[in-house]
């Protein structure tokens, strides 16, 4: 149990650290993808198959693509490294901002009521998850679903508008 968890944690945190410390932006994204895969492996270890597959589908399949496109469409040259911290002021500001985020996260984690049981994590089946989502949390699911559908329709509308009136676009 703990050996597998240690390997997964090491891979996740190690690749996250490599992504943060690396100078090549694109290689950082690949390391970030490895880190996300590590999180999926952690879910797998914890017995949450469904969440693990969703993690791979969404983070490795979609979010990494968004990150790649964002980098490729904005950067100037191939080997552009991130600039070194220009001044002491900038470095201090960065540390303060990071400490603020860390404090908020730690506070949230410390104050959220987590039911800790002595035994292994309860195995929740996909069916159970479905009933929970459709029953107790139906409103939240509905809101998320409507939001995503609107985003999707928005993308379709954007695609439908631009391509129509351009001259010379006929096949």
């Amino acid at each position: 149990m703990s050996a597998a968890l240690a390997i997964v944690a090491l891979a996740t945190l190690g690749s996250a650290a490599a992504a943060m410390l690396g100078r090549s932006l694109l290689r950082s994204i690949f390391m970030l993808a490895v880190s996300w895969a590590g999180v999926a492996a952690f879910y797998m270890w914890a017995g949450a198959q469904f969440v693990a597959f969703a993690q791979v589908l969404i983070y490795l399949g979609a979010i990494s693509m968004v990150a790649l496109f964002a980098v490729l469409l904005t950067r100037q040259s191939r080997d552009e490294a991130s600039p070194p911290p220009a001044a002491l002021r900038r470095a201090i500001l960065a540390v303060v901002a990071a400490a603020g985020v860390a404090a908020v996260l730690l506070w949230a984690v410390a104050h959220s009521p987590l039911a800790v049981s002595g035994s292994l994590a309860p195995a929740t089946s996909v069916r159970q998850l479905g009933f929970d989502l459709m029953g107790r949390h139906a409103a939240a699911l509905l809101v998320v679903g409507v939001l995503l559908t609107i985003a999707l329709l928005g993308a379709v509308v954007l695609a439908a508008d631009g391509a129509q009136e351009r001259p010379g676009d006929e096949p």
Partner: protein
Amino acid sequence: MSAGPTDAHLLERAPFLLRDWLTHALPEPLRWFANTLIAIAAILAIFGTLFALLTLVERKVLGRVQNRPGPNRTGWFGILQPVADGIKMLTKEDIVPRAADPLLHFLAPVALLGFSVLTFAVIPYGRDLVAVRLDAGVLYFFAAGSATELSIFMAGWSSNNKYALVAAMRALAQLISYELPLLLSAVPVVLAAGTLSAPDIVESQGGFTWGFVPHWHVFTPWGAAAFLVFFISALSESNRSPFDLPEAESELIAGHLTEYSGFKYALFFMAEYFGMCSLCGMAVTLFLGGWQAPLAALEFIPSYAWFALKLCALLLVFIWIRATLPRLRMDQLTRFAWKFLVPLALVNLAASAFWSLSFGWAGPMQALRWAIGIALAVGPFVLLGRRLGAGIGPRTYRYA
């Protein structure tokens, strides 16, 4: 993997009997391990052979369509052509560009092949014949499939070649565009079957109406529409013609494969064919009744034979389409995905929901159910198709 059906006849149980005969001497924990290994080895061996045969069949069929013999020099009717190709690929020099990122350049084909092989794990090849029984098997399938996109980008970027990079971005745009209709067209099936597990979805398609119309999802209005969307998206996701823009050999110097040679190049092709096989297998599972026989009288033929038959039929359609249709242009390709397939799949979701809700309708209401179902499936198809084609007349060649 379970013990297999016990009441079925000998041929149906043959794979399980063979496996148990091989591993019955081992103690329990080791036996489970050996059984798993055998399942993996069988899948790799069968689909590896299928890949080799498919390359030959594809060239033969393309030759037949184009009125030429195809490969016919190696062995009887060119039957040894895959072996010759394999030896050629293995002995060719593996070139890595000096400016390339050597690690990622090496990892890209390996990761691509690895993820495509992973998708085979959840497809039910026959009654109880599935490597891993997962509650969320369909989700696993799409998750493993979506991870291949990253490897294609890895290949394009690590080559350090501007053509490869541009081609990789083009490939990504295509794969992301068609991933959406692929997923959305699988959702109605999950909705109808009420499960994400692939074997259970096949089970839910058992039985016949009037004794001869099987309850496959493709024989419902929403199922036919979803199958169409799924099939078109599968063509695109596996880089097959008419969507083979990522690697358009004659026009775009082979895209992200530009800097690959030798066995790594062969690995890319292997992954492409594996992807094609697994997507066809998923299409058979979701819409064509999986391993179910089309007639109750034909159930004496083992279930895995039916699966193989359906899979091969779909693969032949893939090849047929490659021989028939010309390649799309990039803007046509993305326009087709976003303006036609995605809305169609979304509307089809509603059609499927209606079909599930009207399950209890009987008598004359049954006819109404079919009428509404067909209207919900065909109506958007016609309307969207008209809109997609509006203002684009037949092409005229003024200067030709």
